[in-house]
């Protein structure tokens, strides 16, 4: 692992041997190693970041099992409670601000860029925490129909979402999609940035201590090319959020779309600059919701006209 900036040394004559961290994944509220036993070592400017789990398709399957098990109860929580839980993530991130900045610098950002990314990330959590109990009012509707019925359209979560996180914005990019996915009542399996995976793991540690129920967020580290056919085909996954620039030559998005079509998955491909304020918006919540329309007969319960 790359060396952190040390703030103070207790005894300069006898420097401590630093305790190195084993980077593990985050699945079902626990921190397992990959079942495959494989690792890889991403490098930034020639310097190794550490050994990270190289997730296998079985790790993917286990994460989906955890996400599916957690989905119904996450969606059933009151919107207000989801909001509180998301806000708690911001509290946890705030306490780790220094560590998050250090780690972004180790992964290649300048001090200024790192601080700005962490601050924006924390603010983004608060932003989506606020939206949890509001998007339903904005996007739902009462529809005019030509018969004595109430006709409502309301949003329901899509289900289990697989999220391929941004390669270049390891913290802000990951949160910018995970948060709207969670706000809408979905659970998520994230594939962290393969070249800069440290921040996703530290974020997992924040999530594990922030009242987010086990399995609601799961974080894998590994290679997109190895896993893409498996998550695209996995029938228990209901939607895919692919945070990748569209490339004409390498058509991984295209092959994911084709495989995903077999199981009627939603596939959203994003190529947004997450640092820009306009790219945090409630429409991202709607991307991972389905519209349910219900008809309800209007009953005559008073003499003066239709009513409740």
């Amino acid at each position, binding site marked *: 692992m790359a060396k952190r900036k040390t703030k103070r040394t207790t005894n300069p004559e006898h420097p401590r041997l630093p305790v190195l961290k084993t980077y593990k994944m985050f699945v079902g509220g626990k921190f397992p190693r990959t079942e495959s036993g494989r690792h890889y070592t991403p490098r930034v400017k020639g310097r190794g970041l550490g050994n990270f789990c190289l997730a296998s398709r079985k790790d993917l*399957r286990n994460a*989906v099992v955890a996400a*599916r098990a957690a989905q119904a109860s996450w969606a059933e929580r009151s919107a207000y409670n989801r909001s509180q839980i998301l806000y708690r993530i911001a509290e946890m991130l705030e306490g780790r601000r220094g560590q998050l900045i250090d780690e972004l610098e180790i992964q290649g950002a300048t001090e200024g860029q790192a601080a700005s990314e962490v601050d924006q990330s924390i603010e983004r959590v608060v932003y989506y925490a606020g939206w949890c109990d509001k998007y339903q009012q904005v996007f739902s509707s009462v529809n005019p129909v030509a018969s004595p019925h109430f006709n409502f359209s309301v949003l329901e979560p899509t289900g289990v979402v697989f999220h391929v996180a941004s390669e270049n914005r390891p913290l802000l990019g990951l949160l910018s999609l995970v948060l709207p996915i969670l706000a809408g009542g979905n659970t998520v399996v994230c594939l962290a940035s393969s070249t800069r995976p440290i921040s996703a793991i530290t974020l997992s540690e924040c999530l594990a201590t922030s009242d987010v129920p086990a399995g609601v967020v799961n974080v894998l580290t590994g290679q997109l090319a190895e896993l893409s056919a*498996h998550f695209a*085909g*996995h*029938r*228990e996954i209901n939607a895919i959020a692919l945070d990748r620039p569209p490339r004409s030559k390498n058509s991984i998005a295209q092959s994911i779309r084709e495989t995903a079509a*077999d*199981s009627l998955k939603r596939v959203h491909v994003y190529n947004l600059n997450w640092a820009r304020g306009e790219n945090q918006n409630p429409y991202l919540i709607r991307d991972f919701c389905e519209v349910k329309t219900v008809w309800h007969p209007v009953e005559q319960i008073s003499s003066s006209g239709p009513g409740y």
Partner: protein
Amino acid sequence: MAQRAKRFTERSIKGEAKRQGLRMVLNMIDLTTLEGSDTPGKIQQLCHKARHLHDNVPDLPHVAAVCVYPNFVSLAKRELAGTDIKIASVATAFPSGQTSLELKLTEVEQAVDAGADEIDMVISRGRFLSGDFDYVFDEIAAVKQTCGTARLKVILETGELGNLDNVRHASDLAMEAGADFIKTSTGKIKPAATLPVTLVMLLAIRDYHRRTGRQVGMKPAGGISQSKLALHYLVMVQETLGPAWLDNQWFRFGASSLANDVLKQIIKQQTGYYPAADDVSRD
């Protein structure tokens, strides 16, 4: 025992061996519903599932038996007419076993008369734990006699026996009293079936077979819901008792959700994609 049992979980079973193993597991399942909330509709659904595990997957074996409460035996018998799926019925005041011997025998008699092919009885754990082994032995022998041609499975409820020595003793006692099968658990209390407990019982079966020449079956029940775990059990049977027991005449899984997990694994092997919960029928 725990260490020996753990080693069975470290075998790698892939490809064709896994395919055959999964089909064998399906064929050994006693598809079970033993809930206070069971209704005739639930039993019909279970029987339909036993016959049609998944119509889109060709050449699937069917399960070994369905396992229900005595009052649903005649219904299950009608639903499964014309198939060779067995009807197993729990009896003897399942799951606690706390009633008089007369009532237990009457219950067994009714279940057998209604058409049960197999009877799953529970032993009197209270008597066993207070050292009244003669009572437990006589009770099993009496039930065996009442069963007639129906095969008798004796549930030891190992989770209540306290330790492996008691499990071994209860296994020996049940086999000497005439059990055709010994079974770990009712599924109503935790822990239910575990690998070490099942291993102790398999060893008891092996020793009994060597001593008397009579083959006794084994049925772990409760808590086995993953295909992988079920395959570990098969490995353990193979390595403890040998291939003679790898048949649904001599080995069964008591389970409700295992069948769906095995089906999903088989579908995964055939299509290459992990199926969703909605791709198989509800339990």
